[in-house]
């Protein structure tokens, strides 16, 4: 049974890979052709944040309904989100090398935010592994998940707006929404965002089914 949204996600990503390299982009100083990274780097981060959101959603559900299925989903979504941070970081580092001239800088609040997000979710997995009892683990992990998600959002949503950032769209840098994000960019960028989010959901579904099978195997 193949669901339509899986095909749609795969087609959208295929479209962005092909058309993302083909269509014309605005010529901007420094950015030049690297502006195409907006089709790959940004949607991958959106997919990661989406998965973290899914994780928190199931954490809240776990606390209100107290069922272990939500806990498994919350855990798996956090894993998928963390997985998406790797290509997000790699594409970002590559882009930074060619525009800012460095792989990594501590000056940028968004980069720091990402590093913190990765640390938070690593701490979340360590917390999970340190509690043996299933129900207790589900409850405590959900509490940490919700609290950490709020603090992470303070970090990546509020703080960058207070300080200058090297990132496009912050602190006097060229804003995508203003003039670079012309209609040519948009025709690829929005499908890419939807495509990567659908893809992350697909990965989550497969991972979830695998965990359920493993749990069943352990019970038998």
């Amino acid at each position, binding site marked *: 049974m193949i669901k339509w949204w899986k095909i749609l996600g795969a087609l959208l990503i295929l479209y962005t890979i092909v058309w993302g390299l083909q269509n014309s982009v605005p010529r901007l100083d420094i950015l030049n052709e690297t502006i195409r990274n907006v089709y790959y780097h940004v949607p991958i981060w959106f997919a990661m944040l989406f998965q973290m959101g899914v994780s928190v959603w199931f954490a809240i559900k776990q*606390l209100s309904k107290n069922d272990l299925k939500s806990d498994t989903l919350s855990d798996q979504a956090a894993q998928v989100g963390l997985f998406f941070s790797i290509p997000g970081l790699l594409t970002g580092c590559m882009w930074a090398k060619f525009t800012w001239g460095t792989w990594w800088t501590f000056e940028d609040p968004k980069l*720091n935010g990402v590093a*913190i997000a990765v*640390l*938070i979710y690593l*701490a979340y997995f*360590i*917390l999970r592994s*340190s*509690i043996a009892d299933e129900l*207790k683990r589900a*409850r*405590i992990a*959900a*509490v*940490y998940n*919700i*609290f*950490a998600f*709020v*603090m992470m959002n*303070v*970090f990546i949503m*509020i*703080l960058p707006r*207070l*300080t200058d950032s090297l990132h496009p769209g912050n602190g006097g840098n060229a804003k995508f929404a203003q003039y670079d994000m012309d209609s040519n960019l948009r025709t690829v960028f929005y499908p890419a965002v939807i495509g990567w989010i659908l893809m992350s959901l697909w990965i989550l579904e497969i991972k979830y089914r695998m965990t359920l099978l493993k749990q069943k195997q352990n019970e038998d």
Partner: protein
Amino acid sequence: MFNSGLSHLIKKEFLIEFRQKSTLAGILVYIISTVFVSALCFKKIINPTVWNALFWVIFLFITINVSSKSFLQETKGKALFNYMYYHPRHFILSKIIYNMLLMAVLSFITFFFYSWFVGNMVQDLGMYLLCLLFSSTAFSGVLSLMSAIASKASNNISLMAILSFPVLMPLILVSVKLSKFAIDGIAWSVSFKYLFVLLMLNLTVITLATILFNYLWKD
């Protein structure tokens, strides 16, 4: 909100603390020796950024040391007793309020010794102390909840540090920024928005902690 349960609990916290004077004295010695070690290592600090950073690192470790014991000290029997007698909201609020008061006092003491031994570079003392006050309250709010989480897990202090460092990061950054403004004597109109963010963070932390503690409480 301030009904008998909550005020009773806060009173209990203070009573326990002052009955065991050794822990309080231990914290004071910890503060003085940490500041003294850094004074000896750095000799003289000329750069305000380094001065500020060192202060916040010392502050961070002191808060973790002070707040971590708030739940890690609870034994199984005590927890059961509290569970039967008190409301969870009162319980976490009493811990948070007590930690906030204690940390605010301790942060001023730390600042006093730090400016005595290492030297004082602050131009706008009022703003610096205000920043210190609100950051210590926010820090102890976060750390009280983290201590509650860590105490439910394998009960070790390293887990507490692993859990709280990344969560504390936004707080530290705002505090460092605001206190740097105070050191440079920048106008209040500029630093006001950071103070506002710090206050909002305080509110967020307390609200989240009181809501979430309900679920940690049951065993």
